[in-house]
Every structure is written in structure tokens, then in C-alpha cells.
């Protein structure tokens, strides 16, 4: 088991409450792993603790219990080994685009000369299509361009793993699509290991090798791991012609709409083992996912039509 690049074991987070009474854990019994070069998305409703998990991986927050082990070492505190792209881009407005990336690069390689840093940064900014804008201030850029700088900054320090906290959430659909394409290209070229939070089902299918489905919080768990079995050379334009696409998409939406709330409480343990969440491949014919129906759960046959319209 420890052969995985990143292993998360029994992760749990409890936030202290104001009244002093213990709050229920946001999530508990979180087990999953990521292999080198894998692109993993995590999907779940608000409040299930996705961002907390990412912050724990980034070292910005501490888990109440459990371990995160990356490359044989426990994740403790922030590290240059893990690059983070923040949801709000988090560029420093008093620095130019180049300055922002150079700040990161100089943090990683303090001994580099100024020319070397500039050349390195320019390369990464060109990679995200911002070669022309390197001397501009973030305030002069559009939202999409700012997020591109954030991505370039994270890639420029060549981290072992990239953590993306809903990086495209604040962008309009057109811009989001373009940047998704770019990210896809870059990741395919660099084989970067990525862990990404998203609310966007299509984004997850386009980008991910594996999609972790989280049940609702509190007591959130990893409910299922969906393998995206489509070939890796996907494009945004062609992906929905793949027969697997809608099977996966329906599976994800079905989970989010109907099943994500059924994993809380003691009875969930009768059909779900949080330590080994089921790995499903809804895209492949014949291999139907192990859909478990609870007595309380109503099947939703109308859902497929809603999604397919």
C-alpha cells in the first residue's frame, strides 16, 4: 500500500465550536491514494470538507487525526514540493505578472541569477499564453488571465504534486473552457501529479483519471472512486462524442443529486466500507457500478432525461 505516491489514511477533521461542545467531524475515515502522474479530481457538495482536505495536503491546515504521506514522507506544514493554485488566484497586486512568478521561483531556487529566473518564468508564462503580458500588473488582466498566472506560478516551481482548489470556479464558461484545454495540454505534456477540487462534473471528466466522490458532511467520507476509463488524449470538443461520456456523467450527477446524502449515519456502514471505497468504472459497458439502494432512497429514472436534454 505504501508504494503509492500519496496516501491518505483515516483523515479526520473536527473544527472547534464557539460553545465549547465538540462539533461533529466535517469528514472522517478518509482513505485514498494517488499515484505518480495521476490527475485526481474530488467532487462533493459544499461543506463536505474538500477544501480542508486540500489544505491539509498543502500543509496549510492540520488534520485532527490521520496521516497524509507523500513520497514516503509525512505531510507536515507547507512545502515547495506541493504547488497550490488558489481559487481566488491570490496574485500579489503590487508585483507584475513576471514578479509574481519570479517570487515563487526565487523561493524555490534562491541561488539562481536574475536572468535565469526571468528566463525560467517567461517560459512558464508563455506556456499559459501570457508571453505578451509579463510586465503588466494583475489589475490590468482579466479573471482568466489572472488564473493563468496562478497556474504558471504553481507549475514554475516544478512541484512533485499540484493542488488546485476550484481554480476555474470564478471564471465564465468560455474562459473556463479555454483554460481547461490549456491545463489538459500542459498536464499531458508534463505528466504532473494533480489533485483538484471542482464543482463542475464535465471539468472532472475532461481532466481526471480518477474522480473521488465525497458524501455530504458532516461525517463526510469518500463514497466512491470513479475511474474515468476514456482514453487520455481527450479534447473538450470531442469528449462528448465518446459513448462512455454520458454514462460517467450520469453516474456522477446521480451520485450528487441522489446518493451523496445516504452515507451518513451508522446504517451506511452496512453497505459501505470507508477504508476501501468501491472503485467503479461506469464508462465501461457491462460493468455496471454497484448501485446500492437504501430503503429510504428513491430511484430517479427521470434524471437521465434531465441530464441528456
Amino acid at each position, binding site marked *: 500500500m505504501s508504494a503509492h505516491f500519496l496516501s491518505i489514511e483515516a483523515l479526520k477533521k473536527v473544527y472547534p465550536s464557539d460553545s465549547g461542545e465538540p462539533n461533529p467531524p466535517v469528514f472522517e475515515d478518509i482513505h485514498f491514494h494517488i499515484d505518480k502522474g495521476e490527475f485526481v479530481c474530488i467532487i462533493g457538495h459544499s461543506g463536505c470538507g474538500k477544501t480542508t482536505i486540500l489544505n491539509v495536503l498543502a*500543509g496549510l491546515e492540520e488534520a485532527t487525526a490521520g496521516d497524509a504521506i507523500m513520497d514516503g514522507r509525512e505531510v507536515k506544514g507547507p512545502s515547495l514540493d506541493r504547488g497550490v493554485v488558489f481559487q481566488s488566484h491570490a496574485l500579489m497586486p503590487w508585483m507584475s505578472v513576471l514578479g509574481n512568478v519570479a*517570487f515563487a521561483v526565487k523561493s524555490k531556487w534562491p541561488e539562481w541569477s536574475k536572468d535565469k529566473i526571468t528566463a525560467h518564468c517567461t517560459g512558464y508564462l508563455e506556456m499559459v499564453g501570457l508571453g505578451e503580458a509579463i510586465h503588466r500588473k*494583475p489589475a490590468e488582466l482579466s479573471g482568466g488571465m489572472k488564473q493563468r498566472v496562478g497556474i504558471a506560478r504553481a507549475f514554475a516551481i516544478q512541484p512533485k504534486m499540484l493542488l488546485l482548489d476550484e481554480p476555474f470556479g470564478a471564471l465564465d464558461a468560455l474562459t473556463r473552457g479555454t483554460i481547461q484545454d490549456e491545463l489538459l495540454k500542459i498536464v499531458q505534456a508534463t505528466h504532473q501529479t494533480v489533485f483538484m477540487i471542482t464543482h463542475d462534473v464535465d471539468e472532472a471528466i475532461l481532466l481526471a483519471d480518477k474522480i473521488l466522490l465525497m458524501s455530504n458532511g458532516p461525517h463526510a467520507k469518500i463514497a466512491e472512486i470513479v475511474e474515468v476509463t476514456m482514453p487520455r488524449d481527450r479534447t473538450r470538443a470531442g469528449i462528448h462524442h465518446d459513448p462512455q461520456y454520458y454514462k460517467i456523467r450520469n453516474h456522477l450527477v446521480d451520485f450528487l443529486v441522489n446518493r451523496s446524502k445516504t452515507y451518513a449515519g451508522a446504517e451506511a456502514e452496512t453497505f459501505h466500507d470507508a477504508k476501501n471505497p468501491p472503485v467503479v468504472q461506469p464508462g465501461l459497458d457491462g460493468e455496471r457500478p454497484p448501485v446500492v439502494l437504501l430503503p429510504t432512497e428513491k430511484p430517479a429514472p427521470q434524471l437521465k432525461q434531465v441530464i441528456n436534454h
Partner: protein
Amino acid sequence: MPSKLSLHAALISILIFAIFLGAWQLATQPKESSALVGANAEYAALMGKGAEKTDGFPPPIKVARAFVEYLSDPFYDKGPNDKGIGIQLAHSLGRVGLGFLLAVIVALPLGFAIGMSPLLFRAFNPFIQVLKPISPLAWMPLALYSLKDSSISGIFVIFICSIWPMLINTAFGVASVRRDWINVARTLEVNPLRKAFLVILPAAAPTILTGMRISMGIAWLVIVAAEMLVGGTGIGYFVWNEWNNLALPNVIFAVVMIGLVGMVLDMFFGWLQKLVTYRE
């Protein structure tokens, strides 16, 4: 369009000034009939120039003469009670500058520490809250007693009045640096010194500069009063001295100069503020 607007504004400004001068002239016109008759006139003649100063509020032309007289030779020095306006202002500016600089040296690092640490913030807060509302001039007796020098006491008073806005604004600016920027620095394992100078300081700079601008405004207000108390040199002393001479035109001249210098100081800090302000 904006140039047309500013032209109109300037015209109206000039008009207001002209009306003000006219009203002033009308209000201070000498009343020929009743003023100088009999013994009063003889007494006035006896007193010579002195009478000129006592016959009511000076009309604009006398004040204008004071302006010309002082500005034509701003740096003369004829003994302790008769120095040019340039020298007096330089003394005041020197005291303000020194006191302000000392306040910067104390307030910025301390404000940084208080802003970074909630513990220090709570520990220092009661003292700041008590010391802040004290009129800086109330410190004067203690300063004179312990420092035993009127000029240094003046500097101390400037120091004590400029420290609070800077301290509070620095602490506030540092404490409210966006979490995201701090997190970026953390994930990049930036060392504390680099983080302080390259992330927190630029992020908090606009707030800090606002504090400095307020401090400088207060310091310039206080220096006039302080110099009236301690005497010797400076624009405050000049005002008080001319009041004792009953030379109201000179007092008016000094009052206008205080306003002009204060405006220039404020403009300078406004310019600094603009330099460090960033657009998001």
C-alpha cells in the same frame, strides 16, 4: 472636459478670494470721523509707529505689506527675537521631522509585531487605548522636567503625538493582510524576513502610509502650540512673539504660512501614498 471643469473651479476660487478680500477691506476701513480727535490724536502721534498697530484689525493692504516684507528676506537673523520666516519655519520643520522620524522608528516595527501577533495586540491594546487620547501638550511638563531642554521637549511632544496613528494603522494594516497572500508565502516556504518585506509590508503599505499622513497632520498642528509654550524659535514662537508685539499683520502672515506648509506636507504624504497604493 476635466480641464474645463478645473478652469471653472479656479475661476470660482479666485472670485471667492476676491469677495473675501473686499469684505475684509470694507470691515476694516478706518472710521475718519470718530477715530483720531483731540487728545487721542496727539497721543497717537506721540506713540508714533506703535499707534499704527493698535488701531483695530489690520486691512488687507497692511497684511500684504507684511507678506512682501517677510518673503523678500526670509532668512535674516537679527538676534533671538527677530529672525526671518524661513529660519522660523526651518526650526519648526526640523523639530517635526525629528520627532516624526523617531516615531516612525518606534511605531513601524512595534506596529508590525502587534499586527502579526494577536497575543501582543491584546497585551499592548490597553496601553494604546489609554495613551492615545492624551493631548500631547499634557506631556510637556513631564518632558520639560525630565529632559531639561525646551527644544528636545518639543521634539518629544511631536514624537508622542505622531506615534499613535502610525502604530494603530501599521498594526491594523499588517493584521488584515489577505489570508491568500500569506498562504502563498507559506506554500512557497518563504523565510520570515522575506515574507515581512516582500509580502506583508507592500500589502499593508497603503494603510501604514495613511497612518503616517494622519500623524504628520497632527504633528504640524501640535508643533505650533508646543512652540508657543516652550518659546525660543519656530513658527509657533513667531506667532506668539508677534501677538506680544500686537503686530497683527505679522500674525496673519504667519497663520497663512502655517496653512501653506501644512498643505505641502500633506500633499507630499498624499504623493507617497499614491506610490504604494496598488489596484486589485
